[in-house]
C-alpha cells in the first residue's frame, strides 16, 4: 500500500478551493500549489556554483538526486538576507527537473476558497507579475500564489 496519502482534506469541495504550501520571503507571504510540492527540507550543505546565474544559490543532494537551489530573494529582486541566516527549502518539479526554492521560512498548508482570489494588481512589479498567478486575501495578509513553471523559466543564456 504505497498510495500517497492526501496532504490536506477539507470539507470544501476541491472545485472551489486551492491548497497551497505557504512560505515567506522578506516578510511577504507566498504560496505554491500543494500538488507541485515534492519535499520540504532544511538544507545543511549547499554546494555553490561559481560562475552560474545569480538566482542559483547552489546544489544539494536530495536522496541521491542533485537538485538546484533557487534563491528566492535574488530571484524576486528582494534585498539579500543577513549572512549566516538559515532558511528552508520547498522542492518543486518543473518540466521533469527538480528545483528547490530557498525561502526564509515555510508556513502551513492552507486551503483557500476561490472567492478570496484576485488577479494580479496592475501596479505589480513586472518581474513579480510574470511569476505570480493570483493574489489571495488571507487572515495573515496577502498571499501571492506563484506559477511554478513561469517561476522556473529562468533565462539561462550566459
Amino acid at each position, binding site marked *: 500500500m504505497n498510495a500517497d496519502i492526501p496532504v490536506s482534506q477539507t470539507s470544501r469541495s476541491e472545485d472551489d478551493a486551492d491548497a497551497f504550501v505557504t512560505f515567506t520571503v522578506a516578510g511577504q507571504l507566498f504560496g505554491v500549489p500543494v500538488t507541485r510540492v515534492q519535499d520540504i527540507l532544511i538544507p545543511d*550543505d549547499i*554546494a*555553490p*556554483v*561559481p*560562475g*552560474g*546565474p545569480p*538566482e*542559483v544559490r*547552489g*546544489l*544539494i*543532494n536530495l*536522496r*541521491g*538526486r*542533485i537538485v*538546484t537551489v*533557487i534563491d528566492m530573494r535574488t530571484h524576486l529582486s528582494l534585498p539579500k538576507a543577513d549572512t549566516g541566516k538559515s532558511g528552508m527549502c520547498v522542492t518543486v518539479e518543473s*518540466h521533469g*527537473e527538480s*528545483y528547490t526554492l530557498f525561502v526564509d521560512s515555510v508556513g502551513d498548508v492552507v486551503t483557500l476558497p476561490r472567492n478570496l482570489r484576485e488577479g494580479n494588481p496592475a501596479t505589480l512589479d513586472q518581474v513579480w507579475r510574470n511569476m505570480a498567478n493570483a493574489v489571495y486575501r488571507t487572515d495573515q495578509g496577502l498571499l501571492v500564489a506563484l506559477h511554478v513553471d513561469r517561476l*522556473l523559466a*529562468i533565462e*539561462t*543564456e*550566459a
Partner: protein
Amino acid sequence: MDDLLQEFLAETTESLAVLDVELVRFERETSDAAILSNIFRLMHTIKGTCGFLGLPRLGAVAHAGENILGKFRDRELDVTPRAVTLILKAIDQIRSLLAEMEVTGAEPTGSDDSLIGEINALAGEEPAAAEPVFADHIVPNLSEGGFPVAAELLAEVAEALSQESISQSVPAILPEPPPAPVADPAPAPAPEPVPATATREAETKESATAASSIRVNVDVIENLMTLISELVLTRNQLLQMQRGQKDNEFKVPLQRLSHITSDLQDGVTRMRMQPIGNAWNKLPRIVRDLTVATGKKIELTMQGAETELDRQVLEMIKDPLTHMVRNSADHGIEDGARRLAVGKPETGTIALNAYHESGHIFIRIADDGRGLDLERIRHKAVANGLTTEAAIATMSEQQILQFIFRPGFSTAEKVTSVSGRGVGMDVVRTNIERIGGTIELSSVAGRGTTFLIKIPLTLAIVSALIVEAAQQRFAIPQLNVVELVGVSDRSEARIETINTSPVLRLRDRLLPLVSLRSVLGLPPGGASNDRFVIVAQVGAQTFGIIVDRVFDTEEIVVKPVAPILRGTRFYVGNTILGDGSVIMILDPNGLSGAAGQIGATDAQAGQGEAGLSDGQSGEQTSFLLFRTGGGELKAIPLELVSRIESLDAASIENVGGRHVVQYRQHLVPLVPFCPAHHWKESGKQETLVFSDNGRSMGLVVDEVVDIVRDRMAIELSSARPGLLGSAIISGKAVDVVDVGHFLTQAFTDWFEITAMRKLTRQALLVDDSPFFRNLVAPLLASANWKVTVAADGLEALRLRDHGHQFDVIISDIEMPNMDGLALAGAIRSDPRWSQVPLIALSSRAGEDDVQAGHKAGFDEYVAKSDQAHLQESLTRAVRQASARNQAHYELRRAS
C-alpha cells in the same frame, strides 16, 4: 504471464541476437565448425524449449531452421547465401512470434507453412554438386568415417590437422583420433590430447558465463540506487555524530559500514554501464542482408566495442547508429564493379570505432564509398525550398553538407527497402542532440564519408581529479589532465605574470595559465603562494589551471547540470561524491576559452565550419602581443619565445656596434625590433628571448601587452622585412613577426647551424591509434615541431586537398580506410606533397616491411617497438629524410 514463459522470452530474444551475429560470421567463415555448432546448439535449445512449453508453431519454425543447420553440419548442404537467408528469415519469424507472445502471453495462431515449406524444399535438395563453398578437404573425410562426434571436436581436429602439412599427414592420423575423447574417456589418446582438453575447457567456460549473469529489471537497479543514496546520507550523519565523540566501541564498526557503503554505491553505479558493443550486435546482420540484397561486398569492422556507456545513452544512440550504418552500406559504398573501375578494392569498408577522448565518448562511422554528392545536395536543398540559389552559392562545402541533417532531406536516387525514405539524418541528429551530443560529418568525393558522434561524458563514469579553490571543491576529468606541478616561491617552478596574464615556465616553454579563482569569480587567494598548476590539454592546446589544493582522484558518474546552469560554460556536469557532497565538474574546454579571454567567442563562431574537430580542434595558437616602434600591435607565437626578460638598461653593453647583455656567463646579442630603436640609459628594457641549440638572442621591444589565444590566419602578407604579414588576432589587427629575420640578424649562421629554415617546422603525423598519436606528437613538439594529426590516409590527403603544407610526414603503415603504403603512393604521385620527406613509423619492421615501405615511397622506416629510442630514431630519420630531399632538390635544380 507465466514466469516460465517470461524467462523463455527473455532468453530466446538474447539467443536470437547471438544467432544473427553468428550466422553472418559463419557465412564468411564456412569452415569454422565451432561457429556452426554454436548456432546449431542455440537453435536446438529454442526448439527444445518450445516443445517443453508446448509452443507448436514456434517449435515448427525452429525445427525447420535446425534441419538446415543440421545439414550444414553434416556437409549435406552447402552454405549458400540463399540458405543462410532462409535461416535468418526463420529467425525473424521466431522473433516476430515472440513479440506477439510478449503482448498476448500466448502463442499466436496462424501458420508458417510457406516459410517452412521453402526451408524444407531447400533441405530436401540433393547436396549441390556445383561450386562447393567448403574449401576444407579434411572435415568431410572425417565425418564419412561415421563417428558420432560433436561438431566442436570435429573443429578442433580439423584445426589441429590443418596446422600440419595437410595432404601428407591426413592419412596417417585419420584412423586414430576423433572418437576417443567422447566415446571412451579413460585412455587418453596420444595423438590428440590437446583438442580434447581444449574442448572441455571451452565448454565449461561457456556454461560458466551463462551461469554468471542474470537479468535484472532496470527499475530494480534504479530503486536500489536511490536506496543506496539514502544509506550514504545516513552513514554521513553517523560519521558526523561520531566525530564529536571520544573513541568508543562504535568507531570501528562504523568505519567498516562506511567502506562497505561506498563500495556498494560504486557497484550499483557500475551495474548501469554497458559496453557499446551491445548496440552494435545487430549491425553485422543488417550489413549482411544489405550485401545480399544489393550484391555489394561490404566489410564491417568494429573497434572499441568494450567502451562503456550508460544504459540510457546506449538506448538513445542504438537507432541512430543502425540508421547511419545502413545509409553507408546502401548509399555510401558503391557496387563492386564501380569500385574496381575507380581503383578501389572491390570490398567496401564501413569502420565503426568507439573511444573515450578528452572527456567525451566518440563514435566514428567511416565508409570508403563515393562520398556525399555535393552537387545533388545543393540541388535538393534548393528544390526542397530549404534555401535559395543565391544563398547556397556563398556557402562553404561544410555548410552545404549540413543540409542532410534537415528534416525531409534525402539524396537517395531511388527509395530502396533499406533507406531513403526521407526520415533519416534529421532524426539521427535530434536523437543525438537530445542526450547533449553532437554529430559532425566530413565527406570527400570518391573517398568516403565519415560521421563523428560526440557524446558528452554525461552519465558515463570517469576518473576525475578533485581540486580545491577558495575552499570549494571541483572535479576535473582525468582525461584532460597531463600533469600536476606544485608551485611556490621556493620551488623552481614559479608563476610569473606578463602584464596581467599569469604564465609558468615549464621545461623551457611558457605555459599560459588561468586561475580557477579568477575565472569563476571566487575571492582571490590569500597570503600563501603554495599552489598547484594542473596542466590540462584540450585538443592540441595545453594550458595550466591554478588551484589551491589537489586531493586525489575519484571515479565519478557525471550527471548533466540542470537546464538553468547550461548557459554556464565552465562545467560539463555535476556529481555526488562518495561522501554525499555535490561537486561541480569543470570543463577544461570552457576554461581554456576563458584563458584566451576573447579567443573563445571566435572559436565558437568558427565551429560551424570547423569540420571534424576530433582531437585536433585546437587550431588555436597562443600569441604574445607586444608593442614596439609605434604602429600596430605585434604578435609572436608564444611557443617560440623561451623567456621574457626585463633587463636593466644599464646592463646592456655596446660591443663593436652591437648590443649585448651578459647572461649566465654568455653574451646574448640583442636586436631591436625597429632599427631606429632608442636605447635607454636606465630603467627596464623588455626583451623577448629566443633560444635554440644552446644559443640565445634577445629581441628588444617597448612593451609586452598580453597573451591571447586565437587561430593563426595571416590575412595580408607583408613586404616589410621582419614581418610575415597582418592578421586579426582577438579582434585586433596585428602584425605577425617573422622571428627568423631577427634571428639571422643576431647570428648570420643561425639557420645553418640548426639546419632549419623556419623556426616552426610543420609535421604531419598519421596514425590511427590515439595512443601513438599522443605518444609521438609530444616527442615531435618537444623537438620544436608543430604537429598536425590525422587518423588515417584519407584524412591526411584531405589536409593536402585543403592546401596544407608540411616539412615532414610521419605515417603509420596499418590504418583503416587508407593504409600507409597507399598514402605514400598517393603522396609521391601528386606534385603537391611529392617533395615532402616521408617517414614510416610502424610496429611491423621486418626486412620485407621496410623494403615495401621504401618501395611505396617512404624515405625512412622507424620501428614503433623501441620506445626508448623512438625519439632518437625519429629525429635521425627526420634529419636524414630532410637532408636527402634537400639534396635531391638541389641536384634537380642544378641539372
